[in-house]
C-alpha cells in the first residue's frame, strides 16, 4: 500500500513526545524515492491516458498518494520544529553537541533563526526606557523565596553573581544562592534544588 513508510516516520515522532530523535534522513530518502517513482509513473501514464479512462483513474490515485506523502512529510518536519523550539527554551541558544547532532543541517539553521528572532524580540522589551532586565526564559515559576539551597550535579566552573561574588561550581558542592541567579542552571540540570 502507498504511504506506509511515511506513517512509520510519524509514529516514531509521536512515540516520544518529550524527546527529540535523530532526524531520520534514511526514511525521508525512502519516502522521497517513493514519491519520485509515483511521479514518474504518472508522467508516463498521463500521456497514454487521454484515450484510456481507467488509466486516468490510476493516475488520480497515485496523485492522491503523492499529496498524502507530502502532507505527512511536512507534518513530520512541523512536529520536529515544535520540539526544536522547546530545545531553545530549555537548553538555551547554545545546544550541547550531542543534542545538536540530532538535528539535520536545515533544522539547525532553523533553530538559529528561531533563536535570533526570539533574542531580538526580547531585546525590544523595555528598550524604550533602556531597561534590559526581562529574560523570558527565566522566571518560569511563581517565586517562593529569594534564596535557595542547591546541589551541584556537574563541574561547571566559576559563576559570577550579580553582587560581584564569584563562586566555583564543583560536582557535589552545595551552595546557597539567589533564586533568580540559578534558575537557568537548574533547568539545564547543572544544579539541583535541595528541598
Amino acid at each position, binding site marked *: 500500500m502507498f504511504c506506509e513508510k511515511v506513517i512509520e516516520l510519524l509514529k516514531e515522532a509521536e512515540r516520544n513526545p518529550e524527546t527529540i530523535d535523530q532526524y531520520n534522513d534514511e526514511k525521508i530518502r525512502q519516502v522521497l524515492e517513493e514519491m519520485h517513482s509515483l511521479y514518474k509513473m504518472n508522467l508516463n501514464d498521463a500521456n497514454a491516458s487521454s484515450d484510456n479512462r481507467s488509466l486516468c483513474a490510476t493516475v488520480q490515485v497515485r496523485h492522491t498518494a503523492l499529496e498524502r506523502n*507530502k502532507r505527512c512529510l511536512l507534518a513530520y518536519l512541523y512536529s520536529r520544529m515544535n520540539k526544536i523550539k522547546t530545545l531553545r527554551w530549555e537548553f538555551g541558544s547554545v545546544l550541547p553537541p550531542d543534542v545538536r547532532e540530532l538535528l539535520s543541517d536545515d533544522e539547525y539553521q532553523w533553530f538559529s533563526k528561531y533563536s535570533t528572532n526570539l533574542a531580538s524580540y526580547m531585546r525590544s522589551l523595555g528598550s524604550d526606557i533602556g531597561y534590559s532586565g*526581562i529574560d*523570558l526564559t527565566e*522566571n518560569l515559576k*511563581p517565586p517562593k523565596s*529569594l534564596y535557595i539551597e542547591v546541589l551541584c550535579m556537574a563541574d561547571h566552573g566559576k559563576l559570577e553573581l550579580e553582587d560581584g561574588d564569584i563562586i566555583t561550581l564543583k560536582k557535589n558542592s552545595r551552595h546557597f544562592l539567589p533564586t533568580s541567579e540559578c534558575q537557568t542552571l537548574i533547568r539545564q540540570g547543572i544544579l539541583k534544588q535541595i528541598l
Partner: protein
Amino acid sequence: MDLTDDIELSEDEEISVETVLKSVQCAWQNERLAPEILPHRNDMIECMLGQIQHMERNINKLPKTDLRACIHKMELSRIKFMICNYLKTRLHKIEKYCIPIIIAERQRIESGANYLTPAEFKYAQEYSLNMESHLKSAVLAKLPGTMETLEMSKLAVYPNLQSHVFLKANTAVKGVVLEEGLGDQDVEIELENGSQHILQYKPIAELVKNGKVLLV
C-alpha cells in the same frame, strides 16, 4: 522612602501603579485561559517595566541584607514572573496560530485596532518566513515536479473558539447567546454580577476583551 510614584498613562487620567498592576494580573489570567490571542496591553507592561527599573535602582542603594530590600526584591520577582509568563503565553499563541494572526493583524493595523505590539508583529512575520523557508529547503525543494509548490495558508492552525472556558462575571451581562449542541433553539442566558459559568468562548470573547468577565 517612597520607591514608587504615580505615573501618567494618558493626559487626562492618572492611574496609580497599584491599579496598573491589578490590570496586568487580569490581562495575564485572561491571556492564559483564552484560546485566542487578546489585544495587547503594552502601555501597562511598559509602565510596569519602568517601575521595576526604578525600583531596582533604588534597592541597589540599600544594604544587601536590609529587610526592605528583601521585601522589594520579592515583590519584583513576583511581578517579573507574571510579566514573563504573560508575554511568553502570547508568543506561544503567536507561533502556533501565526498564519491567521498575521492576516487578521494586517486588517486590524489598517483600522488602528491592532492586537499585537509592533515587536510581536515583527516576531510573527519573521517566524512565519523562517517556517516557510525551512519547509522549502528541507522537503519541498526535494519533491518531484509540481509537488514542490505549497500555499502557506494551507498550513494555518486556528484557535478553537468553540472551546469551553470558565468565567466569572465582573458585572451583570444580559443576552449571552449559547449555541445549542443539537438542533434545538439557541439559548440566551444572563450573567449575574459575580456569578461563575462554564461555556463556549466564542459568545463571550468580546466580554473578555472589554473586561466584563474574567476567565478563571
